[in-house]
C-alpha cells in the first residue's frame, strides 16, 4: 500500500504534491504560531495566578483593588497590536499560497474527469477522440512531476476529492463542474478519501493515486485503452458473469457488458483495490466482495449475489482474466 | 442622596408610541424583512447560476400584476388615512379606512389567486416555478395575516376600544400593512421587472 509503511498515509503535512507542499508549509506555519499563542496565554494566566498567591497575604480577602493602573496597555498590545501583526502575516501568507496554487506552472500533461458516485469514483482519461478515452475506477495514475488537470462532477450527491498527501479538497457537486490541478512530486501510491459526508458508506469511499514515471504512465494508459483481453469464444466464466446479472451494472469493453451503475471492469485486475478503494484486490477479497458485498459495505449499491458454487469459481476465474 | 431628583409622576407607558408593544412590532417587521431578503437572495442567486433564459419562459406578464400593485399601494394610503383618523379622535374615519383597506387587500389576494391559476408553469416544473410560487405564496400569506390583523382591529374599532391617545393596536396593524406593501414592491421589482432590464 505504497506510503502506508510510514504509518500516516493521509497526513496533510506531507510534501509529496506541489500544491500539497505549499499548503503544508502554510499549515506548519499556522500550527506553530497557534501553539506559541496558546503557550504564551497559558503562561500569562499561570503568572497572574502566581502573582495573586504572593499578594494574597498582603491584603484583606474582600478588599477591592484600586483600579488605578487601568490595564489598557495590555489590551492595546496583547489584544490589538500583536494580533494585528500576526494576522496580517497570516493573511499575506494565505493569499500568496492561494495565488501560487491558482494555476500550474506549465500546461497539464493529462486531463482526468472524475465523477463521484455513492460510494466509488468513476475516472475518465480524456483523450483526443471518444475512442481514445480510458475509463477506470477508484485508481488514478498520474505522471510524476507533471501537472494534471482534474475535472470534477457528481452523479448523485456531493462528494469531495481528496488525496491528503498530494493536495487539499475540491468538491464534486451535481449540476456543477469544478476544475483543479494536482502534481505529484514523488513517485508512490497515495491514499485518497471522500471529503464530504455522502451517505452510509461515506467511510468506505477511498481511492488510490499512483504517481509513476512518465514512461510507465504512458504504458499504463496504453494498456488501459485496449478492450478486455478475453478470447472471442465466450467462456463458461463469462457466461456466469452474464447469468449472474453483473453486466446490468458493469461494463467490460470488448464484450456486450455495458452497465453504467458500477465501476468499469475492463482492466479490473490492473487495479490494486476493489470496493471503492477499501479492499486489497486479492482473490480472497474478490470472492468475499462478490458473495457478501452487503456484509462488507452495508448499504452499497453492489448486491449480495446468490451464485452456485461451481459457477462462482468460474466467475472468479473470469474476473481474474480482466488484466 | 439626590435619587429623587426625577419627577415623582410618570405616564403609564404601555400604550404610548415607542412602548414595548410598538417596539415588538418593529422587531417582528425587521426579522420578517430579513426573511424576504433571503427569499430574494435565493432568487437572484439561482438566477445568476442559471443556464439559458431566465425566467425560462421569458419575463412575466404585467397585465394583472401591475394593476394589483397599484391597488396595494392605494390600500396603504387608506390605512394611513384610517390611522391618522383615530389619532385625531375620529373613530368613524378609523372604521371606514380599515374597511376600505380590507376590501382592497382582499381584492389583491383574489387577483393574485387568478394570476396563479393562469400561469403556464407550476411550482414543480423547474426551479423558477418553485421560487415564483414560494415567494409570491409567502407574500400572499403575509397579506392574509395583515388582513386578519385588520379584521381584529376592525372588530375592536367597532367595539369602541380605541381613542385618540390609545390605539397602539391600530398603529401596529398599520405598520405591518405598510411593511407587507413595501415587501410586495421588492417582490414585484425582483420577479416581474428585473428580468426585463437584463
Amino acid at each position: 500500500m505504497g506510503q502506508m509503511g510510514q504509518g500516516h498515509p493521509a497526513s496533510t503535512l506531507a510534501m509529496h504534491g506541489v500544491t500539497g507542499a505549499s499548503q503544508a508549509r502554510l499549515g506548519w506555519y499556522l500550527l506553530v504560531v497557534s501553539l506559541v499563542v496558546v503557550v504564551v496565554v497559558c503562561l500569562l494566566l499561570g503568572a497572574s495566578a502566581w502573582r495573586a498567591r504572593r499578594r494574597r497575604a498582603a491584603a484583606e480577602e474582600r478588599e477591592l483593588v484600586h483600579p488605578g493602573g487601568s490595564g489598557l496597555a495590555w489590551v492595546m498590545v496583547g489584544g490589538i497590536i500583536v494580533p494585528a501583526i500576526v494576522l496580517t502575516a497570516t493573511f499575506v501568507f494565505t493569499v500568496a499560497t492561494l495565488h501560487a496554487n491558482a494555476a500550474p506552472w506549465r500546461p497539464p500533461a493529462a486531463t482526468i474527469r472524475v465523477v463521484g458516485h455513492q460510494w466509488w469514483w468513476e475516472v475518465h482519461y480524456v483523450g483526443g477522440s471518444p475512442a481514445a478515452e480510458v475509463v477506470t475506477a477508484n485508481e488514478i495514475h498520474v505522471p510524476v512531476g507533471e501537472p494534471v488537470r482534474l475535472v470534477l462532477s457528481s452523479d448523485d450527491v456531493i462528494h469531495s476529492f481528496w488525496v491528503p498527501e498530494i493536495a487539499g479538497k475540491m468538491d464534486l457537486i451535481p449540476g456543477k463542474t469544478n476544475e483543479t490541478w494536482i502534481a505529484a512530486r514523488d513517485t508512490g501510491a497515495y491514499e485518497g478519501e471522500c471529503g464530504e459526508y455522502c451517505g452510509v458508506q461515506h467511510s468506505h469511499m477511498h481511492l488510490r493515486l499512483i504517481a509513476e514515471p512518465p514512461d510507465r504512465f504512458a504504458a499504463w494508459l496504453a494498456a488501459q485503452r485496449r478492450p478486455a483481453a478475453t478470447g472471442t469464444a465466450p467462456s463458461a466464466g463469462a457466461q456466469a458473469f452474464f447469468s449472474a446479472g453483473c453486466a446490468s451494472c458493469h461494463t467490460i469493453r470488448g464484450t456486450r457488458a455495458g452497465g453504467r451503475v458500477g465501476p468499469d471492469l475492463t482492466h479490473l485486475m490492473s487495479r490494486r483495490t476493489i470496493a471503492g478503494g477499501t479492499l486489497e484486490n486479492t482473490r480472497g477479497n474478490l470472492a468475499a466482495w462478490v458473495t457478501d458485498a452487503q456484509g462488507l459495505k452495508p448499504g452499497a449499491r453492489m448486491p449480495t449475489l446468490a451464485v452456485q458454487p461451481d459457477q462462482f469459481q468460474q466467475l472468479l476465474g473470469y474476473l481474474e482474466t480482466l488484466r | 442622596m439626590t435619587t429623587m431628583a426625577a419627577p415623582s409622576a410618570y405616564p403609564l407607558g404601555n400604550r404610548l408610541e415607542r412602548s414595548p408593544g410598538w417596539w415588538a412590532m418593529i422587531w417582528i417587521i425587521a426579522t420578517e424583512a430579513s426573511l424576504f431578503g433571503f427569499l430574494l437572495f435565493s432568487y437572484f442567486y439561482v438566477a445568476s447560476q442559471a443556464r439559458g433564459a431566465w425566467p425560462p419562459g421569458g419575463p412575466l406578464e404585467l397585465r394583472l400584476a401591475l394593476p394589483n400593485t397599484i391597488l396595494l399601494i392605494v390600500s396603504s394610503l387608506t390605512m394611513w388615512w384610517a390611522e391618522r383618523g383615530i389619532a385625531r379622535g375620529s373613530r368613524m374615519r378609523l372604521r371606514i379606512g380599515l374597511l376600505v383597506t380590507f376590501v382592497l387587500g382582499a381584492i389583491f389576494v383574489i387577483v393574485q389567486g387568478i394570476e396563479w391559476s393562469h400561469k403556464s408553469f407550476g411550482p414543480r416544473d423547474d426551479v423558477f416555478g418553485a421560487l415564483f410560487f414560494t415567494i409570491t405564496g409567502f407574500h400572499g400569506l403575509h397579506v392574509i395575516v395583515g388582513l386578519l390583523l385588520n379584521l381584529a382591529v376592525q372588530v375592536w374599532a367597532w367595539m369602541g376600544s380605541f381613542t385618540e391617545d390609545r390605539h397602539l393596536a391600530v398603529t401596529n396593524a398599520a405598520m405591518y400593512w405598510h411593511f407587507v406593501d413595501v415587501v410586495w414592491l421588492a417582490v414585484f421589482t425582483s420577479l416581474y421587472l428585473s428580468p426585463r432590464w437584463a
Partner: protein
Amino acid sequence: MAVVPATIETAPVERLRRIWETPPGLRGTLTTVDHKTIGKRYLVTAFIFLLVGGVEASIMRAQLAHSGLRLVSPGVYDQLFTLHGITMIFWYAAPILSGFSNYIWPLLMGSRDMAYPRVNALSYWTFLASGIFLYTSPFLGQAPNAGWFAYPPFTLTTYDPGLNMDFYALGLLFLTVSTTVGAINFIGTVTKMRAPGMSVNRMPIFMYGTMTTSFSVLFALPSLSVACVFLFLERRFGFPFFDPANGGQPLLWQHLFWILGHPWVYIVVLPAMGIVSEVIPVFSRRPLVAHSLVALSTVATGIIGFGVWVHHMFATGLPALSMSFFSGASVLITIPSGIAVFAWIATMWTGRPRFQTPMLFATGFIALFVIGGVSGVVTAAVPYDLQVTDTYFVVAHLHYVLIGINLFGVLTGFYYWFPKITGRMLDERLGKWNFWVAFIGFNIGFFPMHIAGVLGMPRRIYTYPAGMGWDTINLITTIGSYIFAIGILLFVVNVIVSLRRGAPAGPNPWDAGTLEWATPSPPPPYNFAVIPTVRSSYPLWEDRLPPSGETARGEERSSVFRGPVLDDKRETLGTSPLEADTMSVLRMPEDSPWPFLLTVALALVFYGAVFGVWWLAIAGAAGVLATLAGWFWPRSLEGGAVA
C-alpha cells in the same frame, strides 16, 4: 402615575409579593410568566439536552475507539452524529444561554421582569415542544441523518427517503419560533427595561453578549428558515430548489445554511463570554479592564460574523477573489476576541484573583477560548483549510468552541449564579474536582482530535481502516471524553447535593458589584422592593472604589436600596434606550394561559405536517389564530397590559 419613593425597609414587600407571586398548582405551572421560573426551566431543559447529546456522543466514541469496530450500524451512527450535532448546537448551546439571560437579566438591570413576559413564556414552551418534536424521530427510528448542516441533494427523498430530514426541517422551523420571539424579548428588554441611569456605557458585558446575539438571530435566523422551508417543500411536494436536474442549485442550501450557521457560532459564545466578563472582575476584585472596548468588540464580532459564512465553503470551487475576501474577514474577526482575552488577562494581572470554583472555570475558559480561536484562524487560511476542512481538525475546533467557549462559560455561570438562583452555595470541594476532571478530561479527549485531522481523518465516518495511524489517537480521545463525561456528572452530583445541603448563600456571597446581588437569594417574585437607580457599572462597589469618571465629577451616586416602589399592579419602570432615563411606568401582564395553548396549537401544526395529516395541521393553524386572538384581545389597563 405617582411614584412613591421608599427604602427596602419601608417598602410594602408583602403587598408586592401578593401582586407578583404565581399561585402554586398546575394552573400556576402552565400560566406563569415569571422570568425566574422561565429561566430555571430553560436551564434545566437545556442541560437535559446536553446530557442526551452526551449519551449520543459516548456511543460514537465507543464505536470509534478502535479501527473496524461494529458496535452500531452505519445507519444508526449517521443518526447519532446528526442528532448529537443539532441537539448540542440548537437545543443546548443557545437555549442554555437564554436560560441565564432570562433569569439574570432583569436582576442585573434592576427591573422586575422582561419586557414581554408572556412572549418569554411562549419562547420556553416552544423550545420545549420543538425538542420533544425532534426527539419523536429516534423513537420511530427516523432521526435526522445527514449531519447538522444537511447538504442537499443528499437530503432529498431520492437519497434519504424516510421522515428523518422532515423532522430536521420542521424541528428547526419549530425551534425558530422560540428563538425569534426570545430574541425580540431580549431586545425589547434591553431597550426599555434597564434601571434608571444604566446608560449603555454602564451596561454589563453579559447584556451586550445576549443583545448582540439577539440581533444576529433576528437578521440571520430567517436564512435557515428559508432553507428549511425550501427543503421541506422539495421533499414533500417536489419543488426543485436544490435538485440540479430541474435547474436547482445544491449550493443555494450551503449559502443559506451558513449565513445563519456562522453567526450562530457567535450566538452560542458571545453570551458565554459575557458571563466570564462578569465573573473575572468579581474574583479579581476590581472592575473589568477596558469595559467599553470589550462591549464594542462584542458588537463588532456580531456584525463581522455576518461576513464570514463562505469560509465553510472554500472547497466548493469559488472564485479566488471571493476566497481572499472571506478569508480576510475570518481573520479580522479574531481581533475583537483578542481584545476580550487581554481585557480578562489584564483584569487578573492588575487585580488580586481568588480562585474559587467560578474563577477556576473562567480561567479554564480563557485557555480553551484561545485554543478554539487559533484553530479557527487555521481554518480561515484557505489553502490549509482545503486540507483540514471536514476532518477531525474541524471537529476538534468546533468542540473547543462549543465545549470550551460555551460549556465552560455555562459552568462558570452555574457556579457563580447558583447561590443567587437557589439561595445555596454549590460545594466548593466537589466544584474543584468537577473543574479539574472536566478540564483535564476535555483536553485529553479533544486535543488529539486536532492531530487526527492533520493526519487526514475525515469527520462523519463510522469506522476507519487500521494502518492509517489513527488508532491510538482515537483510543485516547475516547478515554479522555469519558473522563470529561465524569466531570460533567460530578457537576450534576454537586447540584443535587448542594440543593439539599449547600451552605446558605445570603444576598451577596461573592461580594460582587452588580445589581443582581442587591436582592435576597433566591430573589422574591418582585425582584426588587424598590427600583434602583444606577450611576456606575458596579453600583454595589461604588462606595469602596475611588471615584472615577462621572462620579469623580461630583455627579450623583447609585441608589440601590432607595427608590420608587410601584405597587398598584405588576409594574416596573420604562426607560430610554441609550441613557436609560425614566420615561414611564410600565404595567406588566398577569399570568396567562395563552403562551402554553399557542404552543400546543403549533405542535399540532408541526406534527400534522411531518406525518402528512393535513386536517391536524389545519386544526392546529385554526388553534393558533384562536389563541392569538385570545392573547391580544384588548383589556382595560386595570386588568393587564397589551403585548
